[in-house]
C-alpha cells in the first residue's frame, strides 16, 4: 500500500484524494459481468450502506472499454482505476482508498515495460490516446438512470435541434460535420436524411441498426448497454430532421442486456416527455419501439433488416430501390447504425466544427473499434479517424500477447480483409482501408500472430458466410459453397493444381454478380489474404504444409526433451491424454493419439512444445 504520490512522481500534484463525496463506478458491461462484476458491485453497495457519512455513491455503469483487465472499478473524481477487482478486494478498497486516501497498488494497472504502477486511468496508454464522442458517457453514467444521463449532458443536442433549429438546419449541421455511417459502408448521413426528407409521403420511419453481426465487433452492444440515451437522442433528432413519427431499434437477440437497458431508457424518455405526442412542447411527435433480431447475420443488411421488421424472411433487395424512398413497408425510411445515431446528439450539442476538426480528408470525427485477438489490451476504444494501425495495436493495444510476432490485423468482419505488417503505418479511415482491400465495417479489429493461418482465416469467413447467405441469389449461395470446398481441400493438404486460380475466378464473379453486399464483399477476406499472404497459400497447395502450424491435418506436435522440465502442465492441458510423462522428467507426445489441437503448445510455460509439418500424401485426406 502506498500513497498515490509515491506511485508516480509526475502525478504528485495532480492527484489529491478526497475523503468524501466520491463516486465508485463499477463496470457492469457484459465482459466485466462474466468476470464477476455484479458481485463486486453488490459488495460495494453493502459497504456503502455502512459508510453513508462519507457520501459515497456506487454506480453500475456500462463498459469502461478495458475489458481485458475487468472487472474494472473507477474511483471518481480522483480518476483511480482498479483492475481485475474481486468482491474480496472491496473491503480493502473501502478502508484504504475511500477512508484513508491511499491507493491499493496491487490493483492498479502496471506498465507492461517497466512494471511501474499507473493509478490514474487518464495516464494509462489505453485511455490516454482516445477521444470519446460516441462513447462519451459510457462508463460514466448509470445507463438505467435518466437523471444521471441528463446530468452528463444527454438530450442537450435534442433540445437545441427541436427548439432552435428547423429540420433543414439540422441536416445542414450534420452535413457540415461530415458524419458518415458507422456501420460499414460509410454513406453520408446527411445525404440519407435529405433524400428521406424530400421523399413524398406523410408516413416515414427512422431505424436504428443494432444487428451487430460482424464477428469480433461489439461497439454497438457496448453503446446500447452503456448509454442507450445517446442512441435515442440521435434518433429523435434524426426523426425531426426527416419528418418521421415512428421508429424502430432492431437489436440482436444475442444482446439481452442491451435490450433490457434500452427498454428502461425508452420508458424513462417517454416519462420525461422526450418521446410521445408533443416533445418538449414543440408539437413534434415520435415513438420508438424495440424489435429483437432472430439471429441471422444478413439482417444487418439494411433491406433485409426491414423485411425482418415486416415479419418476413430477411432477404435483401436490389439496391436501385432506395430505402429513403421505399424502405420499411415501402415507405421512406432512414436507417443508421447505433454508433452513427450516438454521434448525432454530441454534434448538435457541441456544434459541427469540433467534429469536423477531427479525422482525415473525407473521414471526419472519431470511430469506435473493438480491439481483440492476440493483443495485450483487448477492449473497446474510440479514436480520431486517421490513427495508424501501429498506434492502435502497439500503443493503445499494448502490443502482442505472449511476445509472438504480429502477422496481420483483420478489419471489417466477413466483408473486410487481413492487412499485413507492411501496412501497419496505414492511417485508418474509410478510403485507406478500402484501398488496401479491407473495409471499415462495423469496427472490429482482430489482431493475429504468427500462429494464425491466413488460409484458415479466409476459410473461417467463407464457412461463416456460407451458413449465413440467405440463398436468394446464385453467385453468393453457390459461390460460397464451391469456395468452401476448395478451401477444405487446401487445409487438409488435398489442394489441386489450379485451385488458387479457381478461387480467384470465383471471388471475382461473386464480387461482380451478387445481389447484396454480403455476397459482393464475401470475396474480400479471400482476395486480401491472397494478395498479402500468397506464399502461405502456395505452401498449403504445393508443400502441403501449414507454416503457422494451425491447420490440424498438416501439423504435428513434439516436445523438445532438453527444454522440458516435466512441470506436467501439458499433461493436464491435453484433452485426449496423448501426453505421457511423470513430474520432473521430460514428457512425450503419442503421435497416434494426438489430434493436433495445440493445447499443449499454448499451455507450456517453457516453450518446449514445437510443431512441424505432417506428411500428407496427395489425395489422402480428400
Amino acid at each position, binding site marked *: 500500500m502506498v500513497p498515490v504520490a509515491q506511485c508516480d512522481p509526475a502525478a504528485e500534484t495532480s492527484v489529491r484524494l478526497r475523503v468524501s463525496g466520491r463516486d465508485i463506478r463499477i463496470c457492469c458491461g*457484459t*465482459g466485466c*459481468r*462474466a*468476470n464477476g462484476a455484479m458481485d463486486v458491485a453488490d459488495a460495494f453497495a453493502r459497504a456503502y450502506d455502512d459508510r453513508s457519512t462519507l457520501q459515497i455513491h456506487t454506480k453500475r455503469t456500462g463498459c469502461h472499454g478495458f*475489458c*481485458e483487465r*475487468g472487472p474494472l472499478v473507477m474511483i471518481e473524481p480522483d480518476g483511480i482505476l482498479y483492475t481485475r477487482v474481486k468482491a474480496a478486494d472491496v473491503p480493502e478498497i473501502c478502508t484504504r482508498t475511500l477512508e484513508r486516501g491511499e491507493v491499493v497498488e496491487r490493483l492498479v494497472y502496471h506498465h507492461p515495460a517497466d512494471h511501474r504502477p499507473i493509478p490514474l486511468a487518464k495516464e494509462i496508454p489505453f485511455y490516454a490516446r482516445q477521444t470519446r464522442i460516441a462513447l462519451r458517457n459510457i462508463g460514466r453514467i448509470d445507463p438505467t438512470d435518466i437523471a444521471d444521463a441528463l446530468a452528463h449532458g444527454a438530450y442537450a443536442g435534442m433540445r437545441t435541434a427541436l427548439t432552435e433549429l428547423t429540420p433543414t438546419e439540422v441536416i445542414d449541421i450534420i452535413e457540415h460535420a461530415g458524419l458518415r455511417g458507422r456501420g460499414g459502408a460509410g454513406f453520408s448521413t446527411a445525404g440519407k436524411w435529405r433524400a428521406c426528407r424530400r421523399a413524398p409521403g406523410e408516413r416515414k420511419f427512422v431505424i436504428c441498426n443494432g444487428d*451487430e*453481426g*460482424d*464477428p*469480433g*465487433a*461489439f461497439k*454497438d*452492444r*457496448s453503446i446500447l448497454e452503456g448509454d442507450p440515451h445517446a442512441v435515442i437522442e440521435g434518433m429523435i433528432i434524426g426523426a425531426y430532421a426527416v419528418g418521421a413519427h415512428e421508429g424502430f431499434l432492431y437489436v*440482436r*437477440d*444475442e*444482446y439481452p442486456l442491451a435490450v433490457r437497458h434500452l427498454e428502461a431508457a425508452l420508458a424513462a424518455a417517454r416519462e420525461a416527455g422526450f418521446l410521445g405526442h408533443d416533445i418538449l412542447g414543440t408539437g413534434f411527435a415520435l415513438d420508438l419501439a424495440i424489435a*429483437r*433480431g*432472430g*439471429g*441471422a*447475420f444478413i439482417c444487418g443488411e439494411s433491406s433485409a433488416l426491414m423485411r*425482418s*421488421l*415486416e*415479419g*418476413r*424472411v*430477411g432477404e435483401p433487395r436490389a439496391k436501385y430501390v432506395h430505402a429513403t424512398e421505399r424502405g420499411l413497408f415501402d415507405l421512406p425510411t432512414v436507417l443508421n447504425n447505433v454508433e452513427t445515431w450516438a454521434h448525432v446528439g454530441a454534434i448538435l450539442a457541441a456544434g459541427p466544427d469540433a467534429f469536423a476538426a477531427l479525422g482525415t480528408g473525407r473521414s471526419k470525427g472519431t470511430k469506435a473499434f*473493438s480491439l*481483440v*485477438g492476440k493483443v495485450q489490451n*483487448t*477492449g*473497446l476504444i474510440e479514436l480520431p479517424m486517421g490513427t495508424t494501425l501501429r498506434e492502435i495495436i502497439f500503443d493503445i493495444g499494448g502490443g502482442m500477447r505472449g511476445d509472438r510476432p504480429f502477422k496481420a490485423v*483483420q478489419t471489417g*468482419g466477413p466483408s473486410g480483409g487481413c492487412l499485413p505488417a507492411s501496412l501497419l503505418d496505414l492511417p485508418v479511415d474509410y478510403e485507406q482501408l478500402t484501398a488496401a482491400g479491407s473495409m471499415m465495417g462495423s469496427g*472490429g479489429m*482482430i489482431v493475429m500472430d504468427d500462429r*494464425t493461418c491466413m488460409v484458415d*482465416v479466409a476459410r*473461417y*469467413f467463407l464457412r*461463416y458466410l456460407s451458413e*449465413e447467405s*440467405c440463398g436468394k441469389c446464385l453467385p453468393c449461395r453457390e459461390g460460397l459453397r464451391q469456395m468452401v470446398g476448395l478451401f477444405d481441400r487446401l487445409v487438409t493438404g488435398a489442394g489441386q493444381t489450379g485451385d488458387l486460380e479457381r478461387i480467384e475466378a470465383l471471388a471475382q464473379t461473386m464480387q461482380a454478380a451478387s445481389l447484396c453486399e454480403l455476397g459482393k464483399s464475401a470475396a474480400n477476406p479471400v482476395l486480401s489474404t491472397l494478395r498479402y499472404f500468397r506464399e502461405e497459400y502456395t505452401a498449403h497447395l504445393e508443400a502441403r504444409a501449414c507454416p503457422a502450424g494451425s491447420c490440424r491435418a498438416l501439423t504435428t506436435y513434439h516436445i523438445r526433451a532438453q527444454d522440458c522440465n516435466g512441470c506436467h502442465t501439458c499433461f*493436464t*492441458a491435453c*484433452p485426449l491424454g496423448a501426453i505421457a510423462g511423470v513430474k520432473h522428467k521430460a514428457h512425450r507426445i503419442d503421435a497416434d493419439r494426438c*489430434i493436433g*489441437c*495445440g*493445447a499443449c503448445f*499454448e499451455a507450456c510455460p517453457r516453450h518446449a512444445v514445437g510443431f512441424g509439418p505432417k506428411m500428407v500424401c496427395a489425395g489422402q485426406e480428400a
Partner: protein
Amino acid sequence: MAPCFDPAPLAEILARYAPRETSLIPVLQDVQRAYAYLPCEGLAAVSKTLGVPLAKVFSVVTFYRAFALQPQGRTVIKVCTGTACHIRGADRLLDELERRLAIAPGQTTPDFGFTLKTVNCVGACALAPVMILGERYVAQAKTNRLPALLDEGGHA
C-alpha cells in the same frame, strides 16, 4: 422425455400481440422463450391467430437461427465461434464439448441435460474464447475447465 405441450403460455402470448404479420417474429421469440423450442402444435395456432399461412411461418422459423423446432436440453451451451474466439481456440473447445457430451452442435443429449449450439458472435470478444452456459457467460473458457463447468451446468 420430451415435455408435453401446454397451450396456456401460448394463448397468453398470442393475446398480447396484434393479429398481423408484423407480430410473427416477436410472437415466435416469446414462444421459443416460454417453451425453449417451437412446438408444432403451437405453430399451427400462431399461423391461425396471426393469419399467416403455416408454410410462411415455417419459412421464417427455419430462416432465423434463434428458433428451434426440437425440444432443448435443460442447459443450453452456446459456444461462440466469432473470429476472436476462433483464433483463440473456440474449435478446440467445441471439439472437447462434442467429445464429452457425445453430441454434435445442434443436438441434445438423450437425457435432455444439455443442448450444444454454436453462436456467431456474442460480442464478448475481449474474453475469448467464450461459451454461454445457460445464462452465464464463461470467459476464457479453456478445455481443462469443462469438467467443473459441465458439472455445475448439469445441476443448475
